[in-house]
């Protein structure tokens, strides 16, 4: 015999609108073992909580059922209430009659009846619940940051400054990310390198940061507080411990690779550093471009290297680090615009993608900061086409958020560096950030022409060879425009990194329909994910500018800190265990467990579960043919009783 108290919440009108709450409480009072049943306006409020605590004492309740919102919202709240009232916290059951009932129907009859069914099931289950004891584990104090763009750099520095050890994993041979490619940054037009390189250098110098460039995460084990992450150090063929960054090798190298940093506009050597301020400033060898790796002969770099740092035998190496929390900041790619054949990217040499233009402006870029076309001439008329692939139902519906602003930046720089006419083809101008509207107004003053209409097509000019015609409808005048230009700049959609799916899989992250990582809650938990202990920052979450990226990075650092400042962490007691008498050794549990908790005990010939690793997800119990697995808090008996209660309706 148990003594159950049922508490039905109105949630204002959120629940009370489509469920007759007093009828539900009345119904609950007729169910077996229910001693008291009440409804109240806001159960999570202080009076609501006090009411529950009071009734536990007064009626000697030993099971509590709260029919309210999702357990994700308030399970912890009500667990605290019963715990303070002297009950084991696992004896409280939440019945979600908001997200699962009142918010998904308008029909008060249906709503009330479904709520009754759910409550009936919960009462049946609650009678079989048992008290459980939580476990505590040590928390690893270190943090891993993945991605060394401005987001990752900022997060790593913040954390390191609090005294925590940080592993910063970057897959390129330098940190910096896209920001390192820019010349100026909107809206202030301050020099990108001037504000970024000091931070890059600080990362390198920081005693609490272990910088792992040219590295990728290959395996993630464990759980919040105790992740074991395997990182692959890709072979650089240069021993960075010996290299003194004289860069004599890069001068002599005859190999030719495509400079990713310059967006493929120029070639670089096979042994290279991506750009002069790269961090670390030590070279790597690109196997695919290296004459020795291709032809078996060369080794010029080896000959000139006084430090004997070149090592053609180097292999990929793997190491495993233990961290308590992870920040993912892998940033973005720009959409490949070649398939949008109407814009002629890749066909007409005068069509550029936005990042290529950033490199043209950059004094360390392929043209040393001069704006010239591929044939070396200065452009006379330039069209900047907004929203290429973005805000486009056929490609990406989302707004990339920064293109309006960087297009304005481009216009300004074009005006500064050339005498060309500059045209903006836009759908809407979006300038909602601090100082952005002012920046927009400033550029209008600079004699830039704004045409409200999306660029529809770029064609070859019939009259003037080498020039192009941009076609668009000016939606303000209703006129169809054909504008001759000699340079077209596309502002392509910002999309997640091509390998972001692998990261999502490694860390169990959900992604939205574009592949950006999903936050736990769009408003209240924008930096957390559904995987506890894994946080996200920067454009990998959604397109944003540098100020927002940095704000997120600081936030993510703070979130990660809330985990790693603790010495010990409480683990859910809802773990699974194997009944050895029933286990038929099929090892299905081992195959399906996402946390690697079950293992096979060869001696006993049965599977067992490492409780420290088990997260209580219940997968193993559901695939165990012999029903040998007891998922605590969701035992077969408890679940079957709940189903029985549901089916009675």
């Amino acid at each position: 015999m148990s003594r159950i108290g049922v508490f039905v919440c109105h949630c204002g009108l959120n629940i009370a609108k489509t469920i007759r709450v007093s009828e539900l409480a009345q119904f609950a009072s007729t169910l077996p073992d229910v001693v008291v049943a009440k409804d109240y306006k806001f159960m999570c409020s202080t009076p609501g909580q006090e009411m529950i605590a009071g009734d536990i004492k007064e009626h000697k309740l030993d099971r509590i059922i709260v029919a309210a919102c999702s357990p994700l919202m308030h399970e912890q709240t009500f667990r605290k209430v019963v715990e303070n009232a002297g009950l084991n916290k696992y004896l409280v059951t939440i019945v979600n009659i908001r997200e699962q009932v009142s918010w998904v129907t308008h029909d008060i009859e249906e709503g009330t009846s479904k709520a009754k069914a759910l409550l009936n099931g919960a009462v049946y289950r609650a009678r079989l619940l048992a008290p459980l004891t939580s476990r505590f584990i040590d928390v690893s104090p270190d943090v891993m940051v993945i991605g060394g763009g401005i987001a990752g750099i900022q997060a790593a520095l913040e954390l390191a400054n609090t005294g925590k050890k940080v592993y910063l994993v970057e897959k390129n041979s330098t940190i910096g990310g896209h920001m390192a490619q820019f010349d100026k940054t909107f809206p202030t037009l301050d020099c990108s390198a001037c504000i970024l390189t000091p931070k890059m250098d600080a990362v390198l110098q920081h005693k609490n940061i272990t910088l792992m460039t040219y590295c990728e995460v290959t395996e993630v084990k464990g759980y919040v507080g105790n992740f074991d992450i395997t990182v692959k150090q890709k072979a650089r063929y240069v021993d960075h411990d010996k290299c003194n960054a004289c860069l004599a090798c890069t001068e002599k190298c005859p190999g030719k690779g495509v400079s990713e940093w310059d967006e493929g506009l120029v070639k670089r050597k096979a042994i290279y550093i991506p750009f002069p301020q790269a961090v670390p400033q030590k070279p790597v060898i690109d196997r695919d471009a290296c004459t020795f790796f291709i032809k078996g002969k060369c080794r010029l770099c080896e000959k000139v290297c006084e430090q004997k740092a070149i090592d053609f035998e180097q292999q990929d190496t793997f190491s495993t680090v233990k961290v308590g929390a992870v920040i993912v900041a892998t940033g973005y790619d720009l959409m490949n615009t070649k398939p949008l054949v109407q814009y002629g990217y890749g066909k007409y040499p005068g069509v550029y993608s936005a990042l290529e233009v950033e490199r043209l402006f950059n004094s360390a870029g392929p043209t040393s900061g001069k704006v010239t076309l591929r044939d070396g001439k200065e452009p006379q008329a330039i069209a900047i086409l907004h929203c290429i692939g973005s805000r486009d139902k056929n490609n990406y519906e989302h707004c990339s958020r920064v293109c309006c602003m960087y297009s304005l930046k481009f216009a300004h720089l074009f005006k500064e560096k050339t005498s060309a006419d500059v045209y903006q083809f836009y759908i809407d101008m979006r300038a909602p950030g601090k100082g952005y509207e002012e920046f927009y107004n400033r550029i209008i003053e600079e004699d830039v022409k704004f045409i409200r209409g999306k660029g529809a097509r770029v064609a070859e000019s019939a009259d003037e060879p080498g020039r192009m015609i941009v076609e668009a409808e000016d939606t303000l005048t209703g006129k169809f425009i054909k504008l001759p230009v000699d340079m077209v700049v596309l502002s392509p959609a910002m999309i997640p990194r091509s390998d972001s799916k692998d990261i999502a899989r490694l860390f169990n992250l959900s992604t939205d329909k574009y592949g950006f990582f999903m936050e736990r809650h769009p408003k209240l938990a924008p930096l957390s994910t559904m995987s506890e202990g894994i946080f996200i920052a920067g454009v990998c979450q959604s397109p944003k500018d540098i100020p927002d990226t940095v704000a997120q990075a600081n936030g993510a650092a703070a979130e990660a800190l809330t985990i790693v400042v603790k010495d010990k962490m409480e683990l859910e007691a809802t773990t699974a265990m194997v009944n050895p008498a029933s286990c038929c050794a099929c090892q299905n549990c081992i195959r399906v467990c996402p946390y690697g908790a079950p293992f096979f005990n060869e001696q006993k010939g049965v599977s067992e579960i490492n409780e420290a690793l088990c997260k209580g997800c219940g997968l193993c119990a559901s695939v165990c043919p012999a029903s040998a697995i007891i998922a605590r808090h969701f035992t077969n008996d408890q679940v079957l009783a709940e189903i029985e209660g549901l089916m009675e309706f």
Partner: protein
Amino acid sequence: MSINFKQIEDKLKTEARKLLEEGKVSIVLAYGKGYDEKKPMPYVVRKTSDIENIVFNEYCTANMARYLVRYPRGTKIAIAVKPADSRAVVQLIQEEKVKREDLIVLGIPVYGMKNFKTGETIDSKTTCGIYNPVLYDILLGEEVHGQPVVSPYDVLVDYEKMDKDGRWTFWKKELDRCIRCYACRKACPMCYCDPCFIDQNKPKWGEKSPESQGNLMYHLTRFHHLAGRCIDCGECSRACPVDIPLYLFHKKVAKECEEMFGQAAGMKIEDKPALVNFRVEDSDKILE
């Protein structure tokens, strides 16, 4: 070409003797004399004096892989397998119930095996219809070539014509006849749980005496437990004293599984059991 059963039997005896005498195995799982020629028995050969009892004829349908899981892990076993049986061995290796290195697989290429009750040839009708073992160490006959290639799923044509309600009525009627002797489970190489879910009392998953609800619970769960694992030997259906065509359900599920995951049960040691293995490229059809 036809199958020379006598020659296979002789070869089986020779190999069994050699393996036992050389101490390579402690057990040979084969077939032995039964009540009459039509009813050979599963036979566990432990000593050389047992060897004279070995037989092999077209009625040796039993799947000896059924017996592999009986012996302590690490026991060295030689096992005679027909094509479908070899798939059971592969599946058991995949499931890590037995280790490849503990087994010596005596493969028997064969067709034209017969149902002892009806005398009918079974090949692809109730069995998977392949002629050569997918795994063996020693082949006890010549590989079969030139036989017609028949899909094991061809027999589903009539069954698949039934709609959902039709199938429900069909299975209700068929399964109502089940007397719960559990011969199907005993014959099946993949049904190795002890205790089986249906024998458990807490919770009691279904009624244990033969009655409609309990029969459905037992069989539907068993079908589900065999999904992606049934290697289509047909033994369950032949073992059934009331001739319930269990193979129809198993084949149907096997077909769906193969379409969905691109692998049939027990074909390759490197495969992972389809239903407990996550691959990114797996079809989402299963969620529909």
